[in-house]
């Protein structure tokens, strides 16, 4: 590993035209994109919420559907950042050579990486907010505190965008991303308290869950939807920020190495 690959990121406002480029592309397909991002979480929320929920007792004083709502907001946020940072970023880096075109201008790879992460996080913000709207419309939360899920969606987006970009930096082809989804994203959905409380897991797996970012996102979101202030808020935010910062740095180092060839 060469020394200049490890240099700290040099961030600049030059990232913004790249973010705008992604936004302009997205705007052309905005309606289908939003509907696509909304369909999956809403089907899960309504399907499992009504179906499974009718068989279950209330959980800590809330209906199963209310319990599920917080997890759904968080995992749909996680998914949209992950898809963007994996498939779309890879297309721009590898297939379309968009990055190559951009890097010939006074823009650096550091700017490109920052733009990719912020763009993926922007899509998370959008899908998180869209699911939150559905949660409100279904009457699953009446709390003003639930508005805090909007900045939370952005933070979760930054976290998973940065982690996803590490995979993109390592990926030889699109097939590689299947491993990330089956070995990282899906287990996280099952371990981090989307569908059932982490406390139901055996002790060892509770420890694993405590280290995973989605757990901390849900630990913030769930009380907020119930109009309660989350306990251990500082720790949860710190964990999410750490994943985001470490992920961004690692993805940048790996991308510097990959693109220097």
């Amino acid at each position, binding site marked *: 590993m060469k020394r*200049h690959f490890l240099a700290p990121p040099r961030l600049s406002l030059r990232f913004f035209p790249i973010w705008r480029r992604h936004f302009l592309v997205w705007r052309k397909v905005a309606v289908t994109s939003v509907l696509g991002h909304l369909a999956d979480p809403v089907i899960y929320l309504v399907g499992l919420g009504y179906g499974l929920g009718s068989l279950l007792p209330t959980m800590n004083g809330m209906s199963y559907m209310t319990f599920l709502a917080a997890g759904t907001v968080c995992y749909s946020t996680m998914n949209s950042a992950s898809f963007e940072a994996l498939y779309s970023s890879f297309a721009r880096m590898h297939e379309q050579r968009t990055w190559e075109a951009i890097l010939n201008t006074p823009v650096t790879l550091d700017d490109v990486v920052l733009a990719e992460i912020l763009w993926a996080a922007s899509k998370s913000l959008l899908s998180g907010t869209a699911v939150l709207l559905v949660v409100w419309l279904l009457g699953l939360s009446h709390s003003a505190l639930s508005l805090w899920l909007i900045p939370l969606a952005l933070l979760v987006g930054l976290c998973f965008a940065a982690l996803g970009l590490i995979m993109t930096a390592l990926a030889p082809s699109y097939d590689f991303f299947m491993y990330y989804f089956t070995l990282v994203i899906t287990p996280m959905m099952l371990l981090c308290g989307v569908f059932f409380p982490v406390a139901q897991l055996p002790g060892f797996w509770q420890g694993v869950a405590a280290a995973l970012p989605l757990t901390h996102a849900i630990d913030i979101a769930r009380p907020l939807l119930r109009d309660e202030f989350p306990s251990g808020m500082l720790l949860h935010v710190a964990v999410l920020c750490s994943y985001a910062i470490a992920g961004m740095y690692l993805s940048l180092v790996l991308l510097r190495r990959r693109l220097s060839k």
Partner: protein
Amino acid sequence: MSPAILAENLHKSYGGQKVVDGISLSINKGECFGLLGPNGAGKTTTLRLLLGLSEPDSGTINLMGQAVPQHAREARVRVGVVPQMDNLDPDFTVAENLLVYGRYFGMQDKEIRARIPMLLEFANLTHKRDVKIPTLSGGMKRRLTLARALVHDPDVIFLDEPTTGLDPQARHLIWQRLRELIARGKTLLLTTHFMDEAERLCHRLAVLDHGRIIAQDTPPALIAQYIEPQVVEVFGEQAQAWAHAHAAHYTGRFEVSGETAFCYVTDAEPLLAHLKQQPGLRFLHRPANLEDVFLKLTGREMRE
């Protein structure tokens, strides 16, 4: 006047293989300079080093007065790049491609929009303004890529094999446009493996092989220095047998490649008189060109 591009003793290795092995270049402002070389000679890597996209293992670079890679960002403000492979944005129209690209240079939308009609005219794409990229022909895409490289009115333009894969009509149009840019005083650095392209456009050339510059001069000077002025190509089934029996008698130097014998001579008359007596052979008498120099310097074997 300081040179537009100055590189001294550049070295770059990938995985133990020397790709650039001691290249020095000095390219004047307003000059069209060609980097010629077979595949894998180090042309594209040299361009990447000069642009600051890759760090040299050793050596120094100055691009438009800026030290590269330290100040590559500032240097690239005044440089336009036409890459080897098209990387236009397929989701955008022709005009949107120019608009979005201009923003990367920090230009205001108003400023870019004011330049778009002129750029489209330069690229003969005015009628395609609102068309999406996948519907354009290869030649149109190249022209748009050239127009995109000019969006910020750069002083220096890097072109990596600008006409590879184009048909003759499209190629001639690109050449015409590049000559217009030279006439406007732009500095051009182009890589190519088309000798006619280099001969038509470039004021000076460097021939690269195995990461080194093996010859550097104006096209006529390279021809005068490295090769006899006349070439007689002899071809046909018997060319090989004829060459081995007689060529040495008429020519100081000859090469046989497949069914063609290339005879390099100062005075072609005795050879031509002899060939006219040989009914089984066909021949072509022509002045020596850059391709003869290139093949002499880099050899005839395939590079893959």
